[in-house]
Structures are given as structure tokens and as C-alpha cells.
């Protein structure tokens, strides 16, 4: 999780709104497939051409519209992968495909027990000093005790209290220089205190509410590049002040499902 030079992605061939499992999803708010495809390819182009990321593309599966959000495939550290255990039955059907991908690509796969919900890199993110695990909305806090054993790392569980920010990566984005881009009201006061204890004030970049609701924190950071959804000028100003190059992109088709740049990628090493 330290760098993001290789990313797993999945094309939006079957991406649509087929169910409602977060407050962003509305069956009536249909995805426009051409726009979604164009936005996704736009993201891939910036990642590959402008930032120099190596992309691993996995085969989309008909009837699994959310497989496009590979951040939730699981979590990968070195050659070891732990596939997700989704809370909602609608996404549980993705589990076997992600697990199979990890296995066929030579990863040592460690599985969590059935019913121990954990939604992958969507909820587990690392700073150099500590890893943080979002819980309450999707992942079960008990998964972090197990993951900490598997990876031999400290994982600080943080409670997510706002259903609009249902995964940790919707409100919390570690940057490569050790800073943290985040939206504090998405956390309870204990989590805010625990984050402040580990990330000094100078390293905390607070995103304003209007931009947090545009998923400014659902950003992909590789070296000094940050790819984020467009319409977040305040966040960009703060990133640039810290020496990052921002790449704002139109990704609103994916916001219909409650996802943006980060949700569409999974860091592989």
C-alpha cells in the first residue's frame, strides 16, 4: 500500500444502477453508458500516460455492475491478498471473481471467515505511521484484529458515522508525502481524536463539506500526482500549496453509484 505504481481496474461494460445500497444510488438516476465509458477511459489515460501507472485490467462480469469499483476487491500487501467479504448480498457475488483473479495472478490468498465483513481497500488505508480501518457502515471492526495478525501491522479502527461516507476511502485519503486529505465530520469524535493523535495538524488537510460531498477525498495519489473528481477547487488549492499536481476529472457518472477515482482502482503494491 506504500506506493501506487500498479493498479487493478475493471472496465465499466456492465456498470449500471441495479440496486440501492448507499444513499447515492437511485434506480431512477440511470447511468449513461457512453458517458461512463468515456469518463473511465479518461481516468485510465491520465493514470497511464500522465502519471505512468501500470494498469492490470480484469474481465468485467455481466450482472455485476459494481465490479468496476476494484478498490473493494480486497487488500493487497506485497504478494499477499485478502479478498473482501461484502456486507450486502448484491455485492457478495463479486467475491469469487476477485478471489480468482488474485489466485491466478500468483498472490497468496488469505480469506476471512464467512460473515466477517470487510470491504477491502475501500475501508483499509495506510499512512506511513499507521493503518486505519473504517468500520460500522460496511466493514466489521472485528476484521481489523484479524487483518492486523495477517499483515503484522497496527490497524486503528475508526468509526464512520455518516452513511454518505460509507467507506473510509470516501472521506480519508493518505497522500504520498505523509499528509492526510480528509473530511472530519464523517468520523465520530473518538476516531477524530485518534487520527489527530497520529497525524500532526500540519499534515492534516481538511476538505470542505461541499467538496467532500463531491468525493474530493476519493482521490488517487501516486508520487506527487493526485487524481480527483472535478469541482473541488479548494482541495486543489491546498494540494498545490503542498507541492502536489492535481488532475481533476469528470467522473459524475460513477458518483451516481457513490464512487469516484479511488473506488475505480486497487493498489497492487
Amino acid at each position: 500500500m506504500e506506493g501506487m505504481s500498479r493498479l487493478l481496474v475493471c472496465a465499466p461494460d456492465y456498470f449500471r444502477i441495479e440496486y440501492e445500497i448507499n444513499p447515492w444510488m437511485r434506480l431512477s438516476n440511470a447511468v449513461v453508458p457512453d458517458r461512463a465509458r468515456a469518463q473511465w477511459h479518461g481516468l485510465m489515460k491520465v493514470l497511464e500516460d500522465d502519471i505512468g501507472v501500470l494498469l492490470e485490467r480484469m474481465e468485467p462480469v455481466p450482472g455485476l455492475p459494481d465490479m468496476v469499483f476494484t478498490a473493494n476487491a480486497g487488500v493487497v500487501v506485497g504478494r499477499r491478498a485478502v479478498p473482501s467479504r461484502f456486507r450486502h448480498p448484491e455485492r457478495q457475488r463479486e467475491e469469487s471473481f476477485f478471489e480468482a483473479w488474485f489466485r491466478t495472478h500468483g498472490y497468496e490468498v488469505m480469506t476471512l471467515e464467512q460473515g466477517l465483513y470487510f470491504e477491502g481497500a475501500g475501508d483499509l488505508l495506510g499512512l506511513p505511521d499507521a493503518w486505519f480501518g473504517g468500520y460500522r457502515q460496511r466493514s466489521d471492526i472485528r476484521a481489523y484484529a484479524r487483518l492486523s495478525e495477517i499483515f503484522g501491522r497496527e490497524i486503528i479502527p475508526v468509526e464512520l458515522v455518516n452513511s454518505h461516507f460509507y467507506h473510509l476511502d470516501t472521506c480519508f485519503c493518505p497522500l504520498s508525502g505523509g499528509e492526510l486529505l480528509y473530511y472530519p465530520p464523517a468520523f465520530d469524535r473518538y476516531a477524530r481524536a485518534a487520527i489527530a493523535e497520529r497525524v500532526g495538524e500540519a499534515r492534516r488537510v481538511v476538505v470542505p463539506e461541499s467538496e467532500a460531498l463531491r468525493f474530493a477525498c476519493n482521490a488517487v495519489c501516486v508520487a506527487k500526482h493526485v487524481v480527483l473528481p472535478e469541482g473541488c477547487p479548494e482541495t486543489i488549492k491546498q494540494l498545490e500549496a503542498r507541492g502536489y499536481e492535481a488532475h481533476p476529472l469528470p467522473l459524475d457518472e460513477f458518483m451516481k453509484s457513490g464512487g469516484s477515482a479511488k473506488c475505480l482502482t486497487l493498489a497492487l503494491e
Partner: protein
Amino acid sequence: MALAQETVVLHGHIIDSLILAKVLDTILMMGGTFDLTDVKIGATRKEPSHAKIIVRASSGRLLAEILEAIQPHGASVERESDCTLEPAPADGLFPENFYATTHLPTQVRLKSRWVEVEAMEMDVGIRVDREGTAASTVPMGAVRRGDLIVTGREGIRVLPLERPKERDVFSFMEAQVSSERPHGHIIADIARRMRTLRDDREAGKEGSKVLLAGGPAIIHAGGREALAWLIDSGFIHVLFCGNALAAHDMEAHLFGTSLGFRLSAGRAVPHGHEHHLRTINRIRGIGSIEKAVRTGVITGGIMAACVRRGVRVVLAGSIRDDGPLPDVITDSTAAQAAMRAALPGVSLALLVASTLHSVATGNLLPATVPTVCVDVNPAVPTKLADRGSFQAVGLVMDAASFLGELARELGWKA
């Protein structure tokens, strides 16, 4: 009085994440309490920490609400097992590894359910019925071959006492004994409890009996009238004593002396030392104390008041008894059983001027019964207070002064 409780465990990086703090805060904010037992903090940041928390609440319902609220933060109810049972190998013999009780409220887990142990008493065993659904205490001598006895430590939990709701001398639960403390407010608090219990009893409420266990010093010191008045006025419902208290009480009625001393003049009278023997002989001739009262031989004093008011009296014999009186139980195991049988419904115990009867009674009482121990010798209340966290008040004072002050507080005009 007993609280509902459950043990939960928290595991992982629970310290720096403030998860442990959050769980404990949640318990308190919802009106519960906790005991943190067995906390292991990881030696490095990488190492997880572990905490075992006993959660307590005033009701099972509140406990369930608290458990539901802390569950999402990782506090899982500890996996529990049923208690182990073994048959008694012979009459009067516990299985080798039997569980020895305390006097605190205790529960055992039977068929995945926590069941309250009935008739709680210290230093006995726990017997479970054939169906495996109910449990009660059983003394060693009373166990029968094949009885199912709780063994080991699994599936047994001892609950601490909840601080009583009444704000009086018992609510401090400190069991201090000192001859230097003022007695007045303590006796006033005891009187207040006794008045409430008498009213409850007259209203037909269960569990509102007052027990007095006393020694003959009550008679010698001049506490007889006050105690007789307390019994006649319906403040005392169970009396534990020995041969001597009853004998000297009736001696006072028949001869006006106690152990030969004229009670009114405080002097030894000629041949007075024979009076208690003549009294005992007279009652033995009549057949029982009750008969002596009913036939008008004994019309005043403590025993007469007990018969008139239907007070349950247990006379337990001892090795130095004269006679004894026909009502005295001379088999000490049988006496213990008779005392035990008289305890259900007792809500206040007064142990006055008798080491033997005070300690015997204290051993039989569950910790939930408030107890007052009065003796001129501080060693007696101290010995009882040392039994643990029960609601004990020790008073270092003379029996007659105590009973006189108590009776006056309750309206005795003398």
C-alpha cells in the same frame, strides 16, 4: 438487589484508536457500570491489546441495550459454558472438586441459561435439581448420595452487591466498627428500617421480617423490658438464642432475678444461684415454654411476648447448658438446620450480645441482608464485618443500652 451482568471481550488495537474508551464511556452513559478485568496492552504498536470487561446494569433489559450498543465496536460476549455437575459419592459427602459458596448472590449456568442460586449462604455447596433447571445451596451434612453438585469454577458467577437505594447507615457498606463513633444516628436509622418493615409486614408484604439473635447478657444488663416491648409491638419476628436467654428471662419473671441477682436492686439474693435451675426444672415439668405461657405460669418477659406474637424462636443448645429447657435443640446440626429454615423472608438482622449466636447467624445469612452487630467486645462486630462486603453495621455498646435506645426511638415509654 443483584445486578444483571455479562462479560465481554475487546481485542485488537483498542487503546490508541480510543475504542476501549468509547466502549467504557458508552456503558457509563447508558447507566451501566463496568469492571475492567484482565487488560493486556500490546508491548509494541504492532501488538494487539486485549480487555475483558464485566458489564453491569440494574436490569436485564438495560444490560441487553448496552450490549447491543457496544457490540458494533467489537465488544463480543465471551463464550460461556455451563457449570459442571458431579453426583455426590455418598450421603453427607460432596464430590472432591465441589464449589464452595460465598454469601454473595450467585448464578450458575444451566442449559445455556444463568440461574439464580436460591437460599444463598456461605461455605456450603450448590445442588442442582434433576431437571437441571434450578439450583440451591446445600450444607455438606445435608447432601444425599447421587445429588448433582456444582464442581469446578466454570459457569459460575458471583455478583457484587448493589448499593442499597435507602440513604441510611447501611448504604455506606463500609462495615466500620468503632467504639468512638456516635450511636444515636445509627440507632435512628435502624429504627426507621424496622418501622418500615413492620408496616410492610402488617400490609402482608413478603420478605419483611426482622431477626434478633441474642445472648443472656440482654437479661443480665437490664435489656429485657425493652426487648419484650419490641416483640410485643410487632418489630421482631424471629428470635435465635440459647438456653440461657430463655432461662434467665423466665427466671426474672418467676423470681425477679437474673442468675441470682435481684434485677431491681442489683444485689445477690440468698440461694439466688438456684433460681435459674428451679426455673428450668419448672418448665421441663410443664413440657414446653409455649405451654408455660399458655397456662399462665409465665405471663411477662421476652418468651411470653414471643408466644403471644407468634414469633418463631429457635433455641440452640451448647455444651455448658444447664437443663436444658425442653425447647432447646441439643444436636447442633439440627439446630443449624432449624435456624436456616427460619431465615427466608428476613430483611434485617440484629445480632446482640452473643458471640456464639451472632457468628452462627452471620454465617447463615446471605450478604444481601443488612446486619447490625452489637457487643461490648469490639472483637465480635469486627469478626462479622471481616466476612466481607455485606451491609454490616457494628456497634460497640452494651446490649441493654442498645435495646433501650432502639425501643425508645420506636415509641417505648420507659
